[in-house]
């Protein structure tokens, strides 16, 4: 299992655009390590008799009425954007198209 280093935490935080203090880096590193370890124990339970489960409780058909609810305003929507222009989120040029 790869180790959760402070560098990795800083990298993840940058990807997620979350500002973290040095104290938090240390704290998250140990917490994340624990989570990764815990998840890894699940692997031991996988066998042919046990099917993958995506939900802990058997439920189906939970639907919402097709009724419009208030949305955010444009200003609210863009308030967290790194950059915006003409009411739209501004992102760096994209090389690939699909």
């Amino acid at each position: 299992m790869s180790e959760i280093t402070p560098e990795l935490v800083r990298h993840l935080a940058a990807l997620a655009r979350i500002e973290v203090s040095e104290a938090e880096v240390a704290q998250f590193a140990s917490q994340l390590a624990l989570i990764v370890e815990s998840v890894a124990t699940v692997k031991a339970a996988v066998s042919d008799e046990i099917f993958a489960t995506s939900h802990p409780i058997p439920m189906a058909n939970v639907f919402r009425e097709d009724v419009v609810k208030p949305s955010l305003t444009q200003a609210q929507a863009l308030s967290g954007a790194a950059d915006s222009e003409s009411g739209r989120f501004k992102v760096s040029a994209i090389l690939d198209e699909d």
Partner: protein
Amino acid sequence: MAKDQLMDYQKALDAYEVVIGLEVHVELNTNTKMFCGCANVFGDEPNTNVCPNCLGFPGAMPAVNGKAIENSIKIGLALDCQIAATGRFARKNYFYPDLAKNFQTSQYDEPIAFEGTIDIEVPSGKVFTVAIERAHMEEDAGKLTHVGGSTGRIQGAEFSLVDFNRAGVPLVEIVTKPIYGAGDEAPELAAAYVRSIREIVKNLGVSDARMERGNVRCDANVSIRPKGQEKLGTRTETKNVNSLRSIERAVKYEIQRQAHLLSQGTAIIQETRHWHEDRGATSSGRPKSDADDYRYFPEPDLVPIQPSKEWIEQLRATLPEKPAIRRKRLQELWVFSDLEFRDVVNSDLLDEIDDTVKAGAKPQAARKWWTGELARIANSEDKDIAELSITPTQVAQIAALVESGKLTDRLAREVLTCVLAGEGNPEEIVAKRGLEVVSDDGALLAAIDQVLSEQPDVLEKIREGKLQAAGAVIGAVMKAMAGSADAARVRELVIQRANEL
């Protein structure tokens, strides 16, 4: 950009067998988006129909739009599909700024509908049965605008602007199985297939089905293989084909392009290609492999969909008739010849004429207006006929004015032009512009008497029974009435008056 070399179409078909596959995305016209209560509206100010859900904020929880599920099941049933006992949503992971979540909520191995068929008639009258592999639900992505660079296109763009109003709009993607044996009619079949899908979703009332707005979008897979070869050729997937005409052209182009390459011993690259309507060509996009890793996994925030048999049967009972059956019924109802009817279908005017007849017009009059004058105008303005700003009701009103003798054909065409120019409804235009045929015999008689008194020799000839002489009088009267008289009535009155005077 280097121009592709193309093989002559007929030569290509002599040497190669064509296999196509079509993926059609249908945007549903629900009030709200697929997983949140934001309005599903086209053309609003950017980023005004967005919320934490469709902006991908952490902690936001999706909630499935029940109406979208219902509409998706209806589409599946209309395509004679089986409806899955259990359908599930999955996350399709990809990194592109048109979806803020970094995944698209879609369906993977448990689509809501699968294994259907649809009969498609091509212009020659031949009918192909197209097998549907699946119809699954997913959400649309946001709209990107590429800014900068010389062409305004993605290559060379300096930055991109994102509007997330469309992100999360419910989509149903309908995927065919490979279609063999269409031969030289493969391009027409592709267009006729999309036309039928559009007709189905429109008649179901589940989509606005306007291709020019992207409500119905098609990706066309095309591959060719030397005749007699069992192994399928490498396919390309052409995107952005958003009109029936472009679908036909794009498929034909790919057949010719691929045939040229294969004949030169060059391998076809499996890739996404983009259709450019302006230059009538496809261009290379990104390479694509079947192993594209989207790391699909079941969406943990949404529970499975298990439509009950009762619900499915209830929805089945609401289905409108199938396109093929509807066409047969309408042709019989309207008493159109095969040729007339095929012309209507291939001009894509079935719904317009149906609506016009429903609004009270005689079928032949409706057909004449749409396939004649309106098609001519659309063509001369290089527009799709659906883009003309006239409704079937307005066409029916014009037809009714002609039918009742209030307008001549010439005046009716003038009124039509005014309707298209946005001057209002036919009746209003007739009143405002004083275009109505003068049916007041008094005014006509006065004009006739005047002309006859000016031309006594003509009057004499008419009296002697030389009726062709009346032509000069009719012409002069029509001129005096500034064209707003019914020529047949004028003729009647001229003869009547000549014998009375």
